[in-house]
């Protein structure tokens, strides 16, 4: 398959993730959408790396995957903390900064 097919697939997955991130009420659901978007970016990195014949993109993908794991762990810790204090994981209920 050509590079175009991979990039189009990644674009579709990215837009699915964007849709989930924008429309979900639950913070865990929003995190899942962000995961899909990061995944699409990784597909782009690996595809460009393979088609250019340079392995740097794959090294960057490894970094991106590791950072995503740290991000998910922190995000879910924040979700658990929100549950303790607010008894809710809805993004609309997290409005303390409204003043």
């Amino acid at each position, binding site marked *: 398959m050509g590079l175009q097919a991979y990039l189009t697939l990644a674009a579709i997955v990215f837009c699915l993730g964007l849709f989930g991130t924008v429309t979900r009420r639950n913070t865990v659901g929003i995190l899942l959408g962000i995961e899909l978007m990061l995944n699409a970016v990784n597909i782009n990195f690996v595809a460009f790396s393979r088609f250019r014949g340079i392995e740097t993109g794959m090294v960057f993908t490894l970094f991106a*995957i590791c950072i995503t794991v740290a991000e998910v762990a922190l995000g879910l810790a924040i979700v658990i903390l929100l549950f303790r204090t607010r008894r809710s994981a809805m993004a609309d209920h997290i409005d303390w900064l409204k003043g």
Partner: protein
Amino acid sequence: MTLGIVAFWAFAVILVGAGLAVVIGKNLFHSVLWLALALIATAGIFLTLDAEFIAAVQVLLYAGGVVTVVVFAIVVTERLVGERLSHTSRHIVAGAVVSGGLLALLVRALSQAHLDMARPALSGDLTRQIGTSLLTQFALPFELLAVLLVVGLLGASYFARPEE
């Protein structure tokens, strides 16, 4: 080559279908399981790009680690609240317009770009090349990544500590 094309289309269909199920499903737990399927299909896409090592890392860290952590979080929060988490969507039309518009823009740009470059032949073992550049050219970012992981895990366990 035909096997590669069949594999790409199979993994692409699984990936898009599972991604759709993640964002429109009604059950949060099912969404997480669909996400695991999508991540494994992405590992398959990596395999069609000859990136076996990235595919293995994807399955181990992403599909293994992330999905387990999310399932744990759902179980813990459902126990804290004592009821099923609602997992509904809002602003569906606006979200569909935004993401559909972005998709149309991206596909149009991709169709006009000159991307018909041929896939170069593999010059040796790709995993070996990744490992070499990880420990020579990218040694400092690699060590910083270890620091970031420690800080992230310490911060996560501090946030989620039991109440005094």
